[in-house]
Protein backbone atom coordinates (compact mmCIF):
# COMPACT_ATOMS: atom_id res chain seq x y z
CA UNK A 1 0.00 0.00 0.00
CA UNK A 2 1.13 3.50 -0.86
CA UNK A 3 2.08 5.85 1.94
CA UNK A 4 -0.44 8.72 2.21
CA UNK A 5 0.10 10.63 5.44
CA UNK A 6 3.17 11.09 7.57
CA UNK A 7 3.52 12.86 10.92
CA UNK A 8 7.15 13.75 11.59
CA UNK A 9 8.01 14.61 15.18
CA UNK A 10 4.76 16.55 15.70
CA UNK A 11 4.71 18.50 18.95
CA UNK A 12 1.75 20.53 20.22
CA UNK A 13 1.79 22.86 23.17
CA UNK A 14 -1.23 24.63 24.70
CA UNK A 15 -0.29 27.49 27.02
CA UNK A 16 3.00 25.84 27.93
CA UNK A 17 1.50 22.37 28.41
CA UNK A 18 2.84 19.66 26.08
CA UNK A 19 -0.16 17.81 24.69
CA UNK A 20 1.64 15.98 21.86
CA UNK A 21 5.23 15.04 22.56
CA UNK A 22 6.73 14.22 19.19
CA UNK A 23 4.36 12.02 17.21
CA UNK A 24 5.84 9.95 14.37
CA UNK A 25 3.27 8.06 12.38
CA UNK A 26 2.80 6.79 8.83
CA UNK A 27 -0.66 6.08 7.40
CA UNK A 28 -1.26 4.27 4.12
CA UNK A 29 -3.83 4.46 1.37
CA UNK A 30 -7.01 2.53 2.02
CA UNK A 31 -6.03 1.75 5.60
CA UNK A 32 -8.40 1.71 8.59
CA UNK A 33 -6.27 3.26 11.31
CA UNK A 34 -7.51 3.72 14.86
CA UNK A 35 -6.03 6.15 17.36
CA UNK A 36 -6.70 4.48 20.68
CA UNK A 37 -6.00 5.95 24.09
CA UNK A 38 -7.57 7.27 27.27
CA UNK A 39 -9.46 10.56 27.30
CA UNK A 40 -7.15 13.57 27.23
CA UNK A 41 -4.19 11.77 25.64
CA UNK A 42 -4.19 14.03 22.55
CA UNK A 43 -6.16 12.05 19.95
CA UNK A 44 -8.48 14.90 18.99
CA UNK A 45 -5.57 17.33 18.91
CA UNK A 46 -3.71 15.12 16.42
CA UNK A 47 -6.84 14.84 14.28
CA UNK A 48 -7.39 18.62 14.36
CA UNK A 49 -3.82 19.17 13.20
CA UNK A 50 -4.45 16.84 10.26
CA UNK A 51 -7.77 18.54 9.49
CA UNK A 52 -5.99 21.90 9.50
CA UNK A 53 -8.02 23.48 12.34
CA UNK A 54 -4.97 24.04 14.52
CA UNK A 55 -1.29 24.01 13.68
CA UNK A 56 1.43 22.06 15.41
CA UNK A 57 4.06 23.82 17.54
CA UNK A 58 6.84 21.77 15.97
CA UNK A 59 7.25 19.07 13.34
CA UNK A 60 5.85 18.38 9.91
CA UNK A 61 2.76 16.80 8.40
CA UNK A 62 2.98 15.31 4.91
CA UNK A 63 -0.04 14.51 2.78
CA UNK A 64 0.57 12.65 -0.45
CA UNK A 65 4.23 13.67 -0.25
CA UNK A 66 3.59 17.39 0.31
CA UNK A 67 4.08 19.31 3.55
CA UNK A 68 0.59 20.72 4.33
CA UNK A 69 1.08 22.83 7.47
CA UNK A 70 0.19 26.02 5.58
CA UNK A 71 -2.76 24.59 3.64
CA UNK A 72 -6.09 25.84 5.09
CA UNK A 73 -8.70 23.20 6.03
CA UNK A 74 -10.99 24.04 3.10
CA UNK A 75 -8.25 23.13 0.65
CA UNK A 76 -7.38 19.73 2.15
CA UNK A 77 -8.73 16.54 0.61
CA UNK A 78 -9.80 15.41 4.05
CA UNK A 79 -13.26 15.34 5.58
CA UNK A 80 -14.29 14.90 9.17
CA UNK A 81 -17.14 13.27 11.06
CA UNK A 82 -17.32 15.31 14.26
CA UNK A 83 -17.94 13.83 17.65
CA UNK A 84 -21.26 15.65 18.15
CA UNK A 85 -21.96 15.48 14.38
CA UNK A 86 -21.99 19.31 13.93
CA UNK A 87 -24.80 19.04 11.38
CA UNK A 88 -26.30 22.30 10.11
CA UNK A 89 -29.59 22.55 12.02
CA UNK A 90 -31.13 25.08 9.62
CA UNK A 91 -30.92 22.67 6.69
CA UNK A 92 -32.67 19.44 5.85
CA UNK A 93 -30.90 16.15 5.21
CA UNK A 94 -30.43 16.81 1.49
CA UNK A 95 -28.95 20.28 1.95
CA UNK A 96 -26.63 19.08 4.70
CA UNK A 97 -25.21 16.37 2.47
CA UNK A 98 -25.10 18.66 -0.58
CA UNK A 99 -23.31 21.45 1.32
CA UNK A 100 -19.77 20.62 0.16
CA UNK A 101 -20.85 20.05 -3.45
CA UNK A 102 -22.79 23.34 -3.49
CA UNK A 103 -19.70 25.17 -2.22
CA UNK A 104 -17.74 23.60 -5.09
CA UNK A 105 -20.50 24.81 -7.45
CA UNK A 106 -21.12 21.44 -9.04
CA UNK A 107 -24.19 21.33 -11.27
CA UNK A 108 -27.58 20.47 -9.80
CA UNK A 109 -27.94 17.10 -11.54
CA UNK A 110 -24.53 15.85 -10.47
CA UNK A 111 -25.27 16.93 -6.90
CA UNK A 112 -28.60 15.15 -6.91
CA UNK A 113 -27.02 11.95 -8.20
CA UNK A 114 -24.21 12.00 -5.67
CA UNK A 115 -26.47 12.81 -2.71
CA UNK A 116 -28.88 10.06 -3.70
CA UNK A 117 -26.01 7.57 -3.91
CA UNK A 118 -24.79 8.61 -0.45
CA UNK A 119 -28.26 8.33 1.08
CA UNK A 120 -28.38 4.80 -0.25
CA UNK A 121 -24.91 4.00 1.12
CA UNK A 122 -25.87 5.06 4.65
CA UNK A 123 -29.42 3.67 4.44
CA UNK A 124 -31.36 6.92 4.60
CA UNK A 125 -33.27 6.85 1.30
CA UNK A 126 -36.47 8.85 1.49
CA UNK A 127 -35.23 11.13 4.27
CA UNK A 128 -34.11 13.96 1.91
CA UNK A 129 -36.55 16.58 3.19
CA UNK A 130 -36.44 15.70 6.88
CA UNK A 131 -35.04 18.50 9.10
CA UNK A 132 -31.93 17.06 10.77
CA UNK A 133 -33.08 18.33 14.17
CA UNK A 134 -35.94 15.84 14.08
CA UNK A 135 -33.72 12.78 13.56
CA UNK A 136 -32.43 10.28 16.11
CA UNK A 137 -28.78 10.17 17.15
CA UNK A 138 -28.08 7.19 14.92
CA UNK A 139 -29.68 8.85 11.91
CA UNK A 140 -27.78 12.10 12.49
CA UNK A 141 -24.62 10.03 12.62
CA UNK A 142 -25.40 8.63 9.18
CA UNK A 143 -26.09 12.09 7.78
CA UNK A 144 -22.73 13.26 9.14
CA UNK A 145 -20.96 10.34 7.44
CA UNK A 146 -22.78 10.94 4.14
CA UNK A 147 -22.06 14.69 4.29
CA UNK A 148 -18.35 13.96 4.60
CA UNK A 149 -18.08 11.06 2.12
CA UNK A 150 -20.03 12.76 -0.68
CA UNK A 151 -16.99 15.01 -1.26
CA UNK A 152 -14.96 11.93 -2.20
CA UNK A 153 -12.08 12.78 0.16
CA UNK A 154 -8.89 10.74 0.17
CA UNK A 155 -9.13 10.48 3.95
CA UNK A 156 -12.06 10.43 6.36
CA UNK A 157 -11.43 11.47 9.97
CA UNK A 158 -13.86 10.14 12.58
CA UNK A 159 -13.60 11.50 16.13
CA UNK A 160 -15.29 9.06 18.51
CA UNK A 161 -18.24 8.94 16.11
CA UNK A 162 -20.16 6.31 18.03
CA UNK A 163 -19.57 7.74 21.50
CA UNK A 164 -23.09 9.16 21.85
CA UNK A 165 -24.94 6.02 20.73
CA UNK A 166 -26.25 3.24 22.93
CA UNK A 167 -24.47 -0.10 23.03
CA UNK A 168 -26.65 -1.99 20.54
CA UNK A 169 -26.63 0.77 17.95
CA UNK A 170 -22.89 1.19 18.45
CA UNK A 171 -22.25 -2.46 17.56
CA UNK A 172 -24.41 -2.16 14.46
CA UNK A 173 -22.66 1.01 13.35
CA UNK A 174 -19.22 -0.56 13.89
CA UNK A 175 -19.99 -3.19 11.30
CA UNK A 176 -21.62 -0.71 9.01
CA UNK A 177 -18.70 1.71 9.14
CA UNK A 178 -16.28 -1.08 8.34
CA UNK A 179 -18.48 -2.09 5.40
CA UNK A 180 -18.68 1.49 4.16
CA UNK A 181 -14.91 1.87 4.36
CA UNK A 182 -14.39 -1.25 2.26
CA UNK A 183 -17.01 -0.06 -0.21
CA UNK A 184 -15.59 3.43 -0.79
CA UNK A 185 -12.00 2.23 -0.49
CA UNK A 186 -10.43 5.25 1.20
CA UNK A 187 -8.34 5.78 4.32
CA UNK A 188 -10.28 6.05 7.60
CA UNK A 189 -8.62 7.54 10.65
CA UNK A 190 -10.79 6.62 13.57
CA UNK A 191 -10.48 7.92 17.12
CA UNK A 192 -11.79 6.00 20.09
CA UNK A 193 -11.04 5.25 23.73
CA UNK A 194 -12.87 1.93 23.47
CA UNK A 195 -10.33 -0.89 23.03
CA UNK A 196 -12.92 -3.40 21.88
CA UNK A 197 -14.07 -1.04 19.12
CA UNK A 198 -10.46 -0.59 18.03
CA UNK A 199 -9.77 -4.32 17.97
CA UNK A 200 -12.87 -5.18 15.89
CA UNK A 201 -12.61 -2.46 13.24
CA UNK A 202 -8.98 -1.58 12.56
CA UNK A 203 -6.29 -2.64 10.14
CA UNK A 204 -3.81 -0.76 12.29
CA UNK A 205 -4.11 0.45 15.88
CA UNK A 206 -2.04 3.34 17.22
CA UNK A 207 -2.10 3.19 21.01
CA UNK A 208 -1.49 6.60 22.56
CA UNK A 209 -0.97 7.82 26.10
CA UNK A 210 0.02 11.22 27.46
CA UNK A 211 0.73 12.66 24.03
CA UNK A 212 3.02 9.82 23.00
CA UNK A 213 2.60 6.83 20.71
CA UNK A 214 2.92 3.65 22.81
CA UNK A 215 2.61 1.06 20.06
CA UNK A 216 1.61 0.76 16.43
CA UNK A 217 0.44 -2.58 15.08
CA UNK A 218 -2.35 -4.82 13.87
CA UNK A 219 -5.06 -5.71 16.41
CA UNK A 220 -3.51 -9.17 16.91
CA UNK A 221 -0.04 -7.67 17.39
CA UNK A 222 -1.32 -5.22 19.92
CA UNK A 223 -3.36 -7.80 21.78
CA UNK A 224 -0.85 -10.63 21.76
CA UNK A 225 2.41 -8.72 21.87
CA UNK A 226 1.86 -5.55 23.88
CA UNK A 227 5.11 -3.62 23.97
CA UNK A 228 4.68 -2.27 27.45
CA UNK A 229 2.61 -2.40 30.58
CA UNK A 230 0.38 0.51 29.53
CA UNK A 231 -0.66 -1.17 26.28
CA UNK A 232 -1.23 -4.51 27.96
CA UNK A 233 -3.35 -2.90 30.64
CA UNK A 234 -5.32 -0.68 28.28
CA UNK A 235 -6.06 -3.35 25.67
CA UNK A 236 -7.82 -5.73 27.98
CA UNK A 237 -8.06 -7.14 31.43
CA UNK A 238 -4.71 -8.62 32.24
CA UNK A 239 -2.50 -10.00 34.90
CA UNK A 240 0.60 -7.83 34.82
CA UNK A 241 3.60 -8.71 36.96
CA UNK A 242 7.04 -7.24 37.48
CA UNK A 243 9.96 -9.62 37.14
CA UNK A 244 13.44 -10.16 35.69
CA UNK A 245 14.86 -12.20 32.82
CA UNK A 246 17.09 -14.74 34.54
CA UNK A 247 18.40 -16.16 31.31
CA UNK A 248 17.24 -16.79 27.73
CA UNK A 249 13.84 -18.53 27.90
CA UNK A 250 13.64 -18.11 31.71
CA UNK A 251 11.77 -15.37 33.52
CA UNK A 252 11.43 -14.94 37.28
CA UNK A 253 8.47 -13.41 39.06
CA UNK A 254 6.96 -13.98 42.48
CA UNK A 255 10.21 -15.72 43.50
CA UNK A 256 9.65 -18.51 40.98
CA UNK A 257 11.33 -19.19 37.62
CA UNK A 258 9.08 -19.90 34.65
CA UNK A 259 9.88 -21.19 31.20
CA UNK A 260 9.08 -18.70 28.41
CA UNK A 261 9.84 -18.26 24.71
CA UNK A 262 11.69 -14.92 24.83
CA UNK A 263 15.42 -14.53 24.48
CA UNK A 264 18.02 -11.90 23.77
CA UNK A 265 17.61 -9.89 26.96
CA UNK A 266 20.71 -9.17 28.99
CA UNK A 267 20.76 -11.16 32.21
CA UNK A 268 18.66 -9.82 35.09
CA UNK A 269 16.89 -7.23 32.89
CA UNK A 270 13.83 -5.94 34.76
CA UNK A 271 10.72 -6.69 32.70
CA UNK A 272 6.92 -6.55 32.89
CA UNK A 273 5.10 -9.82 32.31
CA UNK A 274 1.55 -10.23 30.98
CA UNK A 275 -0.64 -13.28 31.45
CA UNK A 276 -3.99 -12.91 29.65
CA UNK A 277 -6.97 -14.12 31.76
CA UNK A 278 -8.09 -16.48 28.97
CA UNK A 279 -4.64 -18.10 28.75
CA UNK A 280 -4.75 -19.39 32.31
CA UNK A 281 -6.42 -22.72 33.16
CA UNK A 282 -7.62 -23.88 36.53
CA UNK A 283 -6.22 -27.35 37.32
CA UNK A 284 -5.84 -29.54 40.43
CA UNK A 285 -3.36 -28.08 42.93
CA UNK A 286 -0.56 -30.56 42.27
CA UNK A 287 -0.60 -29.87 38.49
CA UNK A 288 -0.46 -26.06 38.75
CA UNK A 289 2.54 -23.82 38.18
CA UNK A 290 1.05 -21.41 40.72
CA UNK A 291 -1.20 -22.26 43.67
CA UNK A 292 -3.96 -20.14 45.12
CA UNK A 293 -7.41 -19.91 46.71
CA UNK A 294 -10.54 -19.07 44.68
CA UNK A 295 -11.82 -15.71 45.94
CA UNK A 296 -14.78 -15.06 43.68
CA UNK A 297 -16.48 -16.26 40.54
CA UNK A 298 -18.75 -14.27 38.25
CA UNK A 299 -20.68 -15.66 35.31
CA UNK A 300 -20.10 -13.35 32.31
CA UNK A 301 -22.34 -14.97 29.71
CA UNK A 302 -19.77 -17.03 27.82
CA UNK A 303 -17.15 -17.57 30.50
CA UNK A 304 -16.63 -17.30 34.24
CA UNK A 305 -14.42 -14.58 35.61
CA UNK A 306 -12.62 -16.17 38.52
CA UNK A 307 -10.26 -14.41 40.92
CA UNK A 308 -7.59 -16.62 42.50
CA UNK A 309 -5.36 -15.30 45.26
CA UNK A 310 -1.78 -16.57 45.47
CA UNK A 311 0.57 -15.58 48.28
CA UNK A 312 1.84 -12.76 46.03
CA UNK A 313 -1.13 -11.35 44.16
CA UNK A 314 -4.60 -11.90 42.72
CA UNK A 315 -4.99 -13.47 39.25
CA UNK A 316 -7.97 -12.90 36.99
CA UNK A 317 -8.90 -16.01 35.00
CA UNK A 318 -11.47 -16.41 32.23
CA UNK A 319 -12.57 -20.02 31.85
CA UNK A 320 -15.67 -21.95 30.87
CA UNK A 321 -15.40 -24.25 33.92
CA UNK A 322 -16.56 -22.89 37.23
CA UNK A 323 -14.62 -23.34 40.48
CA UNK A 324 -15.93 -23.28 44.05
CA UNK A 325 -15.13 -20.27 46.18
CA UNK A 326 -12.60 -21.07 48.94
CA UNK A 327 -11.20 -24.07 47.07
CA UNK A 328 -7.42 -24.36 46.66
CA UNK A 329 -6.52 -24.68 42.96
CA UNK A 330 -3.54 -24.73 40.65
CA UNK A 331 -3.04 -22.33 37.76
CA UNK A 332 -1.59 -23.64 34.52
CA UNK A 333 -0.33 -21.84 31.43
CA UNK A 334 2.07 -22.58 28.59
CA UNK A 335 5.46 -20.92 28.03
CA UNK A 336 4.11 -19.09 24.96
CA UNK A 337 1.34 -17.53 27.08
CA UNK A 338 3.90 -15.49 28.99
CA UNK A 339 4.38 -12.12 27.29
CA UNK A 340 7.56 -10.32 28.22
CA UNK A 341 7.83 -6.52 27.85
CA UNK A 342 10.61 -4.09 28.57
CA UNK A 343 9.71 -2.00 31.58
CA UNK A 344 8.50 1.49 30.70
CA UNK A 345 11.28 3.99 31.10
CA UNK A 346 14.12 1.53 30.44
Amino acid sequence: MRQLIEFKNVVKEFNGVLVLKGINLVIHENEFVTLLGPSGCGKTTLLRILGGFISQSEGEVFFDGIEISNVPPYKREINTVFQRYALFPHMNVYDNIAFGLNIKKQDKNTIKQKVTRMLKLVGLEGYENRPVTLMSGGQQQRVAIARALVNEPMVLLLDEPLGALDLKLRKEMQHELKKIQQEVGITFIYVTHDQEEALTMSDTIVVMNNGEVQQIGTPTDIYNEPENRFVADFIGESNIMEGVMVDDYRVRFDETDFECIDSGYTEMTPVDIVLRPEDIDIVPVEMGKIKGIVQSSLFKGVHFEIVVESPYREYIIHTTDNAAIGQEVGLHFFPEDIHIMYKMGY
Partner: protein
Amino acid sequence: MVGSKNRKLTRFFLIAGVLLFFYAPIASLMVFSFNDSRSLTSWAGFSTQWYTALFANREMMSAIYVTLLVALLSTFISTVVGTLTAIGISKSRKIIRELIINVNNFPILNPEIVTAIGLMLLFSSLSIEKGLITMLVAHIIFSTPYVILTVLPKLRGLDPDIAEAAMDLGATPAQALWKVIIPLIMPGVISGALLAFTMSFDDFVISYFVSGNGVKNISILVYTMSKRINPTINALSTILVVIITFVLLIVNLLPFLKKKELRGAE
Protein backbone atom coordinates in the same frame (compact mmCIF):
# COMPACT_ATOMS: atom_id res chain seq x y z
CA MET B 1 -65.40 26.75 46.54
CA VAL B 2 -66.50 30.23 47.53
CA GLY B 3 -62.93 31.10 48.47
CA SER B 4 -61.60 30.08 45.09
CA LYS B 5 -64.29 32.08 43.31
CA ASN B 6 -63.41 35.12 45.40
CA ARG B 7 -59.77 34.68 44.62
CA LYS B 8 -60.53 34.51 40.92
CA LEU B 9 -62.52 37.75 41.13
CA THR B 10 -59.77 39.51 43.07
CA ARG B 11 -57.27 38.39 40.52
CA PHE B 12 -59.42 39.65 37.67
CA PHE B 13 -59.85 43.08 39.25
CA LEU B 14 -56.16 43.34 40.07
CA ILE B 15 -55.12 42.61 36.51
CA ALA B 16 -57.82 44.87 35.09
CA GLY B 17 -56.71 47.64 37.45
CA VAL B 18 -53.06 47.35 36.45
CA LEU B 19 -53.89 47.30 32.75
CA LEU B 20 -56.19 50.31 33.17
CA PHE B 21 -53.46 52.17 35.05
CA PHE B 22 -50.96 51.44 32.25
CA TYR B 23 -53.08 51.92 29.21
CA ALA B 24 -55.76 54.46 30.14
CA PRO B 25 -53.43 57.46 29.57
CA ILE B 26 -52.33 56.09 26.21
CA ALA B 27 -55.89 55.26 25.20
CA SER B 28 -57.15 58.70 26.17
CA LEU B 29 -54.30 60.29 24.26
CA MET B 30 -55.20 58.29 21.16
CA VAL B 31 -58.91 59.02 21.46
CA PHE B 32 -58.38 62.77 21.91
CA SER B 33 -56.07 62.92 18.92
CA PHE B 34 -59.31 62.55 16.95
CA ASN B 35 -61.13 65.26 18.94
CA ASP B 36 -62.71 68.13 17.06
CA SER B 37 -61.58 70.74 19.59
CA ARG B 38 -58.37 71.81 21.35
CA SER B 39 -59.62 70.36 24.60
CA LEU B 40 -57.86 67.32 26.03
CA THR B 41 -60.70 66.56 28.40
CA SER B 42 -64.06 67.10 26.71
CA TRP B 43 -65.11 65.33 23.54
CA ALA B 44 -66.39 67.56 20.74
CA GLY B 45 -66.84 65.04 17.95
CA PHE B 46 -64.64 63.09 15.56
CA SER B 47 -62.16 64.81 13.30
CA THR B 48 -58.78 64.21 11.71
CA GLN B 49 -57.84 67.88 11.74
CA TRP B 50 -54.83 67.32 14.05
CA TYR B 51 -53.44 64.77 11.68
CA THR B 52 -53.88 67.21 8.81
CA ALA B 53 -52.20 69.86 10.90
CA LEU B 54 -49.41 67.44 11.77
CA PHE B 55 -48.64 66.62 8.16
CA ALA B 56 -48.77 70.32 7.26
CA ASN B 57 -46.35 71.23 10.05
CA ARG B 58 -42.84 71.37 8.53
CA GLU B 59 -41.12 71.22 11.89
CA MET B 60 -42.96 68.06 12.84
CA MET B 61 -42.41 66.41 9.48
CA SER B 62 -38.71 67.18 9.73
CA ALA B 63 -38.63 65.63 13.23
CA ILE B 64 -40.27 62.49 11.90
CA TYR B 65 -37.77 62.39 9.07
CA VAL B 66 -34.80 62.82 11.46
CA THR B 67 -36.17 60.16 13.82
CA LEU B 68 -36.69 57.61 11.07
CA LEU B 69 -33.38 58.34 9.35
CA VAL B 70 -31.39 58.07 12.58
CA ALA B 71 -33.33 54.99 13.70
CA LEU B 72 -32.87 53.14 10.41
CA LEU B 73 -29.20 54.01 9.95
CA SER B 74 -28.22 53.41 13.57
CA THR B 75 -30.15 50.13 13.59
CA PHE B 76 -28.38 48.92 10.47
CA ILE B 77 -24.90 49.94 11.61
CA SER B 78 -25.23 48.80 15.23
CA THR B 79 -26.70 45.46 14.11
CA VAL B 80 -23.79 44.75 11.75
CA VAL B 81 -21.15 45.96 14.21
CA GLY B 82 -22.79 44.27 17.20
CA THR B 83 -23.24 40.93 15.41
CA LEU B 84 -19.64 40.82 14.17
CA THR B 85 -18.39 41.83 17.62
CA ALA B 86 -20.46 39.11 19.25
CA ILE B 87 -19.01 36.52 16.86
CA GLY B 88 -15.52 37.78 17.67
CA ILE B 89 -16.22 37.62 21.40
CA SER B 90 -17.55 34.08 21.19
CA LYS B 91 -14.36 32.91 19.48
CA SER B 92 -12.02 34.60 21.99
CA ARG B 93 -10.25 33.11 24.96
CA LYS B 94 -12.27 32.98 28.14
CA ILE B 95 -10.52 35.84 29.96
CA ILE B 96 -10.81 38.22 27.02
CA ARG B 97 -14.41 37.17 26.48
CA GLU B 98 -15.50 37.91 30.05
CA LEU B 99 -13.61 41.19 30.05
CA ILE B 100 -15.30 42.42 26.89
CA ILE B 101 -18.74 41.27 28.07
CA ASN B 102 -18.31 43.24 31.28
CA VAL B 103 -17.11 46.32 29.42
CA ASN B 104 -20.11 45.87 27.13
CA ASN B 105 -22.55 45.72 30.05
CA PHE B 106 -21.25 48.95 31.49
CA PRO B 107 -23.14 51.39 29.24
CA ILE B 108 -26.30 49.31 29.70
CA LEU B 109 -26.16 49.56 33.49
CA ASN B 110 -24.95 53.15 33.44
CA PRO B 111 -27.71 55.78 33.92
CA GLU B 112 -28.65 57.20 30.55
CA ILE B 113 -28.03 60.74 31.69
CA VAL B 114 -24.38 59.89 32.42
CA THR B 115 -23.92 58.49 28.92
CA ALA B 116 -25.66 61.57 27.53
CA ILE B 117 -23.45 64.07 29.34
CA GLY B 118 -20.36 61.98 28.60
CA LEU B 119 -21.10 61.99 24.87
CA MET B 120 -21.94 65.69 24.91
CA LEU B 121 -18.62 66.48 26.57
CA LEU B 122 -16.80 64.20 24.14
CA PHE B 123 -18.28 65.92 21.10
CA SER B 124 -17.60 69.36 22.59
CA SER B 125 -14.01 68.60 23.50
CA LEU B 126 -13.37 67.27 20.00
CA SER B 127 -15.19 70.41 18.76
CA ILE B 128 -17.49 68.38 16.56
CA GLU B 129 -20.51 70.42 15.53
CA LYS B 130 -23.66 68.95 17.09
CA GLY B 131 -26.38 67.86 14.73
CA LEU B 132 -27.55 64.86 12.76
CA ILE B 133 -24.16 63.13 12.65
CA THR B 134 -23.53 63.38 16.40
CA MET B 135 -27.04 62.07 17.07
CA LEU B 136 -26.47 59.16 14.70
CA VAL B 137 -23.10 58.31 16.28
CA ALA B 138 -24.60 58.48 19.77
CA HIS B 139 -27.45 56.18 18.80
CA ILE B 140 -25.03 53.66 17.29
CA ILE B 141 -23.01 53.80 20.50
CA PHE B 142 -25.91 53.13 22.85
CA SER B 143 -27.61 50.50 20.65
CA THR B 144 -24.62 48.30 19.87
CA PRO B 145 -24.24 46.82 23.40
CA TYR B 146 -27.87 45.66 23.27
CA VAL B 147 -27.32 43.98 19.91
CA ILE B 148 -24.24 42.21 21.29
CA LEU B 149 -26.20 41.12 24.33
CA THR B 150 -29.04 39.64 22.24
CA VAL B 151 -26.79 37.88 19.71
CA LEU B 152 -24.32 36.31 22.19
CA PRO B 153 -26.72 33.71 23.67
CA LYS B 154 -27.55 32.50 20.15
CA LEU B 155 -23.85 32.00 19.44
CA ARG B 156 -23.39 30.22 22.73
CA GLY B 157 -26.14 27.81 21.73
CA LEU B 158 -24.34 26.80 18.54
CA ASP B 159 -22.43 23.55 18.23
CA PRO B 160 -18.81 24.63 18.87
CA ASP B 161 -17.62 22.60 15.86
CA ILE B 162 -20.12 24.04 13.40
CA ALA B 163 -17.81 26.59 11.72
CA GLU B 164 -15.06 23.99 11.46
CA ALA B 165 -17.55 21.58 9.92
CA ALA B 166 -18.34 24.12 7.20
CA MET B 167 -14.66 24.73 6.47
CA ASP B 168 -14.01 21.01 6.54
CA LEU B 169 -16.53 20.73 3.69
CA GLY B 170 -14.68 23.30 1.62
CA ALA B 171 -16.20 26.60 2.78
CA THR B 172 -13.85 29.55 3.20
CA PRO B 173 -14.17 31.37 6.55
CA ALA B 174 -16.38 34.02 4.86
CA GLN B 175 -18.63 31.33 3.34
CA ALA B 176 -18.87 29.58 6.70
CA LEU B 177 -20.01 32.87 8.22
CA TRP B 178 -22.63 33.61 5.56
CA LYS B 179 -24.00 30.17 4.91
CA VAL B 180 -23.93 28.69 8.38
CA ILE B 181 -23.27 31.04 11.30
CA ILE B 182 -25.38 34.04 10.23
CA PRO B 183 -28.49 32.01 9.26
CA LEU B 184 -28.31 30.15 12.58
CA ILE B 185 -28.09 33.29 14.72
CA MET B 186 -30.57 35.23 12.53
CA PRO B 187 -33.39 35.20 15.14
CA GLY B 188 -31.01 36.83 17.61
CA VAL B 189 -29.82 39.34 15.02
CA ILE B 190 -33.41 40.32 14.17
CA SER B 191 -34.38 40.72 17.84
CA GLY B 192 -31.26 42.82 18.33
CA ALA B 193 -32.11 44.99 15.34
CA LEU B 194 -35.70 45.55 16.51
CA LEU B 195 -34.46 46.39 19.98
CA ALA B 196 -31.96 48.86 18.53
CA PHE B 197 -34.71 50.38 16.40
CA THR B 198 -37.15 50.94 19.27
CA MET B 199 -34.38 52.29 21.50
CA SER B 200 -33.31 54.79 18.87
CA PHE B 201 -36.85 55.66 17.82
CA ASP B 202 -38.05 56.83 21.24
CA ASP B 203 -34.77 58.04 22.71
CA PHE B 204 -34.96 61.43 24.37
CA VAL B 205 -32.26 61.93 27.03
CA ILE B 206 -29.18 61.16 24.95
CA SER B 207 -30.54 62.75 21.76
CA TYR B 208 -31.39 65.94 23.66
CA PHE B 209 -27.80 66.35 24.86
CA VAL B 210 -25.93 65.47 21.67
CA SER B 211 -28.14 67.25 19.16
CA GLY B 212 -28.01 70.86 18.13
CA ASN B 213 -28.36 73.33 15.30
CA GLY B 214 -32.12 72.87 15.28
CA VAL B 215 -31.91 69.15 14.53
CA LYS B 216 -34.72 67.57 16.53
CA ASN B 217 -36.15 64.10 16.66
CA ILE B 218 -39.75 63.47 17.66
CA SER B 219 -38.99 63.13 21.38
CA ILE B 220 -37.12 66.41 21.52
CA LEU B 221 -39.84 68.17 19.55
CA VAL B 222 -42.62 66.82 21.77
CA TYR B 223 -40.65 67.92 24.83
CA THR B 224 -40.18 71.48 23.54
CA MET B 225 -43.84 71.69 22.50
CA SER B 226 -45.39 70.15 25.58
CA LYS B 227 -45.37 73.47 27.40
CA ARG B 228 -48.05 74.86 25.11
CA ILE B 229 -50.82 72.35 24.78
CA ASN B 230 -51.41 71.39 21.18
CA PRO B 231 -53.32 68.27 20.11
CA THR B 232 -51.00 67.68 17.15
CA ILE B 233 -48.76 66.15 19.82
CA ASN B 234 -51.51 63.64 20.43
CA ALA B 235 -51.63 62.82 16.76
CA LEU B 236 -47.86 62.41 16.63
CA SER B 237 -47.81 60.31 19.80
CA THR B 238 -50.55 58.10 18.44
CA ILE B 239 -48.46 57.42 15.36
CA LEU B 240 -45.47 56.67 17.60
CA VAL B 241 -47.47 54.25 19.73
CA VAL B 242 -48.80 52.48 16.65
CA ILE B 243 -45.29 52.05 15.20
CA ILE B 244 -43.78 50.81 18.47
CA THR B 245 -46.70 48.43 19.03
CA PHE B 246 -46.23 47.10 15.53
CA VAL B 247 -42.51 46.46 16.07
CA LEU B 248 -43.17 44.76 19.40
CA LEU B 249 -45.81 42.58 17.78
CA ILE B 250 -43.29 41.44 15.19
CA VAL B 251 -40.70 40.69 17.87
CA ASN B 252 -43.15 38.58 19.81
CA LEU B 253 -44.83 36.84 16.90
CA LEU B 254 -41.67 35.99 15.00
CA PRO B 255 -40.86 32.82 16.96
CA PHE B 256 -44.40 31.49 16.44
CA LEU B 257 -44.35 32.18 12.71
CA LYS B 258 -40.98 30.46 12.49
CA LYS B 259 -42.31 27.36 14.21
CA LYS B 260 -45.31 27.19 11.92
CA GLU B 261 -43.03 27.44 8.90
CA LEU B 262 -40.97 24.49 10.16
CA ARG B 263 -44.07 22.42 10.75
CA GLY B 264 -45.27 23.31 7.28
CA ALA B 265 -42.01 22.04 5.75
CA GLU B 266 -42.41 18.61 7.27
